[in-house]
């Protein structure tokens, strides 16, 4: 019988740590957990692995301010103790912001995640970008060609956009958007940006763009609720 206790961790990934991809991040967390001596649960089978579930991978190059991971421990621990144990072992650029105990039967973060905030700093100032965004939001559908599993497929990304806000007060344009993220529907911010740039007749270059993922949400009865309450 499984007596594990489930905890949800919220963490940030910034600075130099944005250069490690998801699989390396997973390995890094596994080692940190081991080093912090948390009583981590393991899966059964020939190759037992730590019971860790990320809500959604953060692509290499993007920062995260509210990334979510669920872990299972074999013994109960105080949430602050978990946080401190991890933080004292983490490299600069990753820190655990919050730990909450979950009910074991709560939906895993990976299944629950549905929306995310993204804060995007563009490479320059686009004076009339608001007009472009307005036209995007007025559309009923936006069909984009995507290659998924080597097959070209047309996807309507309009339902995946809740809002896009423009901040044009600074030297460069900043966007804040809330878009679908997770297994039920997913829109990568770079895909959205590429589309917006194409409407403006510009070339999009992700290496010249700063993207920070903010809060991750689940959707309950049509209402957005942060994954880590």
């Amino acid at each position, binding site marked *: 019988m499984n007596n594990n206790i489930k905890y949800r961790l919220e963490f940030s990934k910034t600075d*130099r740590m944005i250069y490690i991809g998801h699989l*390396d991040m997973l390995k890094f967390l596994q080692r940190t957990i081991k080093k912090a001596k948390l009583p981590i649960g393991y899966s059964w089978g*020939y190759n037992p692995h730590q019971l860790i579930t990320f809500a959604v991978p953060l692509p290499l190059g993007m920062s995260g301010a509210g990334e979510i991971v669920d872990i299972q421990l074999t013994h109960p621990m105080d949430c602050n103790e978990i946080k401190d144990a991890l933080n004292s072992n983490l490299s600069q650029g990753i820190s655990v912001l919050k730990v909450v105990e979950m009910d074991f039967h709560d939906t895993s973060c990976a299944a629950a995640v549905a929306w995310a905030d993204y804060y995007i700093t563009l490479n320059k100032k686009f004076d009339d970008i608001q007009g472009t965004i307005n036209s995007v939001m007025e559309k009923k559908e936006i069909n984009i060609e995507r290659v998924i599993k080597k097959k070209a497929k047309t996807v309507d990304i309009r339902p995946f956009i809740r809002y896009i806000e423009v901040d044009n007060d600074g030297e460069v344009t900043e966007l804040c958007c809330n878009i679908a993220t997770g297994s039920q529907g997913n829109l990568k911010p770079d895909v959205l940006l590429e589309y917006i740039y194409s409407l403006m007749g510009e070339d999009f270059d992700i290496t010249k763009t700063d993207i920070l993922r903010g809060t991750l949400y689940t959707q309950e009865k049509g209402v957005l609720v942060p994954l880590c309450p």
Partner: protein
Amino acid sequence: MLKEILLQVEKPARYIGNEINMVVKKPEKVDIRFAFCFPDVYEVGMSHLGLQILYYFLNRRDDTYCERVFAPWFDMEEKMRENNIPLFALETGDAVKKFDFVGFTLQYEMSYTNIINMLDLAGIPIWSKDRSENDPIIIAGGPCAYNPEPLADIIDMFYIGEGEVSYDELLDIYRENKKNGGTKEDFYEKALAVKGIYIPKFYDVEYNDDGTIKSFKPNNEKAPSVIRKVIVKDMDKAFYPDKQLVPLIETVHDRVTLEVFRGCIRGCRFCQAGYVYRPVREKSTDRLLKLADFLIENSGHEEISLTSLSTGDYRGFKELAEGLIEKYADNKISISLPSLRIDAFSLDLMEKVQAVRKSGLTFAPEAGTQRLRDVINKGITEDEILKGCRLAFDGGWTRVKLYFMVGLPTETDEDLMGIVHLSDAIVEKFFEIPKEERKGRPISVTVSSACFVPKPFTPFQWTAQSTVEEFMRKQRYVKHNITRKQVKYNYHEPELSSLEGVLARGDRRSARIIVRAWELGAKFDSWNELFKYDAWVQAFKDTGLSREFYANRERSYDEILPWDHISIGISKRFFIDEMEKAKAGQITPNCRRQCAHCGAASFGGGVCFE
């Protein structure tokens, strides 16, 4: 700018540091900044134990900050050159040119072009004589430093031996000299008193008409005529880090490394490591088990490996292996065993640590016939191999890997045929087992042959290396004669080994070949896909230096060898005797069975006094 670049290159984490257990210091608070340079890509360098030891050894000093530098992969190099970004250290991102010391570890000859490339990327003049007071001091150590001559005009000072011994003294002298406003020149003069330090500019070489060395003499009265290696006497008292840098990306060896002992008792006549690290000095089992705990606790790694030249020769091996299994079996820590002599005990051990997966069995007979194995003093017999295989087959192991060398001294086609016969005999051994009793998958034997490279400080240091054409003929001969479908033959392209043969026994003039090859685009030579053989061929033409002279020529015992001013504590007399015994097919027993009086006892420790 850096961010933009990092997002355009493969594996940007190679260039950011920030690993678990990285040392953080304030550069302005230290007196000495040391850039530890590994002349290969990050994943290779980070798997190197010597780096891990020296990094923490140097950083234990409050006055010193040791940072790491690796060779940027070619995509990164291109971006760096495009954007005028000089070579930088991972910890602070500061330019290497600002450092006090730039230290290279010389692990293999074919990394030399990367050293040139890194100096160039750093904006440091390539030739020692062209450097100014503002340039760092370029120091180098590691196994290839035992013949420092090919790099003698490039590296300012060499460290001959094990880092733990003399670095403190050297750095103390440097700090004092810097404080008192001394110049680099002052420092070099003072460093001549430090044991194990070789400063090439204090020595002059004269050559005979035939290109051999006429004389090699100090030109400074304080310079010792022979530089003797320095080694740790008592391994239990020697510094060993209680933690390890844990990379953020996958590296060649992703695990905690426990060094069990230094040296090797075996005395295989082709093996440079077996001689230069003499005598064998072991750590106690108690100390190793304690170190293992620290390393595991402080790293979060899930695998621990035992490292030494021939780990199975450790006297406390059984106790150590069982101790580790007992400690970690329930803790999800796996133990990676070195290749062991196959017997009932080792198979039982492998069974325990491997749990389910049965990886292949590895044997390194090195030569195909008993005669040639006696010549090279490889103390393994066909009978032992076959018995070991049978035991392993019974236990369900069915994949066998065999390592050989071609081009060994005195080798004939009969010896090459021996490779074929031995692999066939292993397959036949498997088929001796009645069909219904066979376990596991069908038998497969993988035969790999490397090309023999004669190395300094071995009994074969005088012998001629096979030419590229000879190597190819030998490989074709073996390949042609392997007919069983269960046997697979792998072999290396001989060009690289042939160049290694030139550099391994090169002299002071050889640097010109390395620099010319680099100018023609050679770097990352040990990476198949980047190896530019043509650049090297052209480099010989352009410099007028002969590869045959360095690699394919039989030297006489009375020739002055380029490395004669370095002493590893083993007498030349011993190597001559060993060479003569090799020719006569006589073996030399291992150090524990019978002392061969090589001279290593003069270090006053280790196996010589067990």
